């Protein structure tokens, strides 16, 4: 089959970078393939996509060796705008890729650039709006759209130009699960209905592995694995299990127990549906619950809210009558759909926002009587974007700035700095500019800057957005250590798998208040949406089981 794009020995280094972002990459992309591009932060996924549309090297500069061809166009001579008719790229951040101010004008922008005639633009804009379910938003200003809607507009703007090759650079990394699911469904429809060639870089493998016809796994700029999804799963089951969807990890554990050879056919499930079929096949051996570890009882109350009403307009609060307690030794996941008021609620914990009604008590003191700076000694808040925290030139200076703000001095200041550096493994980064670090490293540095004063309450707002599975695991372990030390940690998250793995308690917000509040295995068990893959597979047989680490395989029936 004719290649739609080809890499021939491509090595590329960004200007002023020490190491190449791409190393000797050789691969062929064929028509109608759906390629899932996996790899950790900084592994070269985005660079590979940008090399396909010519932004590398034309826009970014740097040193480029080898050759990339797209539809016979050599990207060394063809500029990105020359390739725009053939290659469409949807970027990570929906805010930074739109140019116009309303939806339909935004979709038309690319078509106008390509010189498409006005009547054809009308038709293509209409079709793009319909295909992504955006017709009702045609006149909406982009400034009033949610992240998910913005990202759909970006996708609509790209598909309107009918590119031969559609590139998606972690398009769901900034989105909540509902929006992600909608976007991925749209991508799946596009692939099935039009046979478009798609290269999708993603971290949330459980959401898209089953969509792919081929998987590329990148590490350190090189393509380490180029395989079918099943071959990739087989490889990951041996050495990188964190890259697998949870149900595949569950079955990989069974393969280990059986020395792989005697498994049904060595295949691993990609979806809950696959896993259910496989359970029917392997009747002789069934999953069973491991003996649960004893839960440590929570300690003193750190924060209490009393009939709290939050929002921006007194007559229409986002949340009303919120009364809750957070205790030492608890790791609480705060969940709920976009716009439910999660981020707004936690901004009341340190006084960034004032309640419409009710009160927040932090270690017994009314937060309304404290300045945010005073509350910061007791409540650290890590917002959604780690970059918001960086105002100094080095990681060490960022940590020092917080300790100075919080008026820690002398030996205690040094001790606190040393402790957070050790806890978050920052020793090797201290003299680096935080803005030059990878995404995962930035989150660790921002967390250090927010929480280095050893506050009893640490609140993290969507810390796993755009984080690769390895980094997520590390973050979960750090938070669990803090909780074991007697802190209280609250994580605002849409990531059900992350919440299930590390939270002891889950709060779900919705309908203007708290919908559910209880132990994670109770709240997440049986939910339609706020539930894990493993729970959805085994909820009837093993109620309350959330992830594969709670499971072992045995010969006894379920």
């Amino acid at each position: 089959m004719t290649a739609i794009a080809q890499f021939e020995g491509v090595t590329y280094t960004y200007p002023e970078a020490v190491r190449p972002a791409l190393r000797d990459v050789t691969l062929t992309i064929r028509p109608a393939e759906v390629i899932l591009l996996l790899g950790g932060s900084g592994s070269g996924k985005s660079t590979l996509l940008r090399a396909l549309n010519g932004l590398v090297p034309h826009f970014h500069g740097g040193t480029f060796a080898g050759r990339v061809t797209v539809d016979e166009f050599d990207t060394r001579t063809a500029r990105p705008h020359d390739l725009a008719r053939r290659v469409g790229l949807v970027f990570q951040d929906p805010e930074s890729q739109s140019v116009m101010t309303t939806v339909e004008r935004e979709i038309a922008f690319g078509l106008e650039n390509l010189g498409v005639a006005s009547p054809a633009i009308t038709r293509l804009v209409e079709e793009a709006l319909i295909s992504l379910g955006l017709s009702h938003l045609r006149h909406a200003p982009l400034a009033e759209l949610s992240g998910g809607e913005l990202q759909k507009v970006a996708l609509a703007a790209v598909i309107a130009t009918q590119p031969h090759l559609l590139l998606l650079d972690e398009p769901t990394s900034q989105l909540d699960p509902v929006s992600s699911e909608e976007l991925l469904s749209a991508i799946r429809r596009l692939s099935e209905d039009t046979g478009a060639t798609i290269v999708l870089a993603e971290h949330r493998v459980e959401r898209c592995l089953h969509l792919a016809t081929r998987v590329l796994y990148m590490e350190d700029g090189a393509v380490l694995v180029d395989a079918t999804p099943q071959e990739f799963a087989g490889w990951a089951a041996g050495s990188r299990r964190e890259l697998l969807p949870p149900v595949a990890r569950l079955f990989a554990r069974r393969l280990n127990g059986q020395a792989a050879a005697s498994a049904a056919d060595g295949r691993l499930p990609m979806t809950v549906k696959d896993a259910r079929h496989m359970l029917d096949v392997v009747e002789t051996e069934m999953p069973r619950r491991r003996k649960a570890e004893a839960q440590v009882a929570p300690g003193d109350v750190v924060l209490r809210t009393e009939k709290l009403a939050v929002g921006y307009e007194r007559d229409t609060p986002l949340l009303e009558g919120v009364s809750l307690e957070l205790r030492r030794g608890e790791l609480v996941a705060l969940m709920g759909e976009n716009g439910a008021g999660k981020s707004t609620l936690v901004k009341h914990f340190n006084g960034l926002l004032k309640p419409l009604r009710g009160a927040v008590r932090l270690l017994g003191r009314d937060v309304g009587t404290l300045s945010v700076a005073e509350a910061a000694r007791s409540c650290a808040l890590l917002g959604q974007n780690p970059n918001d925290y960086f105002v100094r030139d080095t990681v060490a200076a960022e940590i020092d700035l917080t300790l100075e703000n919080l008026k820690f001095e002398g030996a205690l200041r040094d001790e606190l700095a040393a402790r957070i550096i050790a806890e978050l493994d920052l020793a090797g980064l201290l003299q680096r500019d935080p803005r030059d670090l990878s995404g995962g490293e930035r989150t660790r540095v921002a967390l250090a800057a927010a929480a280095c004063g050893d506050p009893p309450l640490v609140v993290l707002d969507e810390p796993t957005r755009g984080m690769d599975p390895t980094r997520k695991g590390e973050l979960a372990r750090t938070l669990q250590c803090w909780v074991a030390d007697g802190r209280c940690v609250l994580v605002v998250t849409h990531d059900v798998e992350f919440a299930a793995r590390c939270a002891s308690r889950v709060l779900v917000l919705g309908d203007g208040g708290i919908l559910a509040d209880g132990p994670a295995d109770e709240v997440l068990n049986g939910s339609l949406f706020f539930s894990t893959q493993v729970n959805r597979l085994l909820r009837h047989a093993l109620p309350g089981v959330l992830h594969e680490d709670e499971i072992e395989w045995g010969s006894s029936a379920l």
Partner: protein
Amino acid sequence: MSTAALAPARRRSRARGTATSCALARRQPAASAAYVAAVAFAALVVVNPVQVAILLGIVVGLLAASGRLRASLPYVRVALAVGLFLAILNPFFSRGGLDVIWQTDLWIFEITLTLQGLVYGITTALRLTAVVLAFALFNVALEPDDQLGLLSRFSFRSGLVLSLAARLLPVLSSDGAHIADAQRARGMELDRGTRRARATARLPLLGALLTRSLERAVDVAAAMEARGYGSGRRSQWLHRRPWRAADAALAGGAVLAAVALLTGLLRGAVGYDFYPLLDDPWAQLTDPWWLVTLVALVAPGALVLVRGRT
């Protein structure tokens, strides 16, 4: 860039599908632009104080009916501040009037406050406010993308800069608020002390905001290039809204008002003499050309806005 961008973060307004809730903005850009231009032209040429006050009332009414009066408050503040300054200053330097209200010597200056000077100052302030609000109405009636569409016929790059500014300013403001919140949350005091102390405390954050803005600018530039910007001759999307009766009413009203104003101007229907004695301001209100102007300005706007609401 201002430290005002570093105010506490607020949730973005969420008026799904009501983006163009102003009915004027849903009309043909050329028709809306012509109509608003006619309103601004009237505010510029009419001098009679009562007619100026009526025009101001029309502009305020159009803004209120568009639901954008509150959004126009910054314009009102600027216009009122400048207008008030002129209204206060004018009587002290204008000596043409005969009806002296108050007279005094201040060092080497002889200050004479006359009724004519006072009325001239107030009228000038009202005219300025009407003109400024007419331009505010222009922003309400034409979204930046439509302004770009109109401007593109003359200078696409200028229009694009306008559109990008309109698109990215709210994002920049939101970025600034988030940076400030993040620093407050790590113990930085940004809200205590005098205004100067607060500005000084926020100054280091502007660097972070500038860095973020530059990063965004680079990302937008990459996205634009990836979407074919600069690939050659652009086309322009023209037929996205069909012409309807309301568009014809707006355009027709604009033309009629302009003709009536020009004729009225030549026939003295909208002029006024302040000095040495005030003309009768009510005399011109029944002039047919003024009445035609009024109808041509009020009727199409009211029609579009009322129909837009229902």
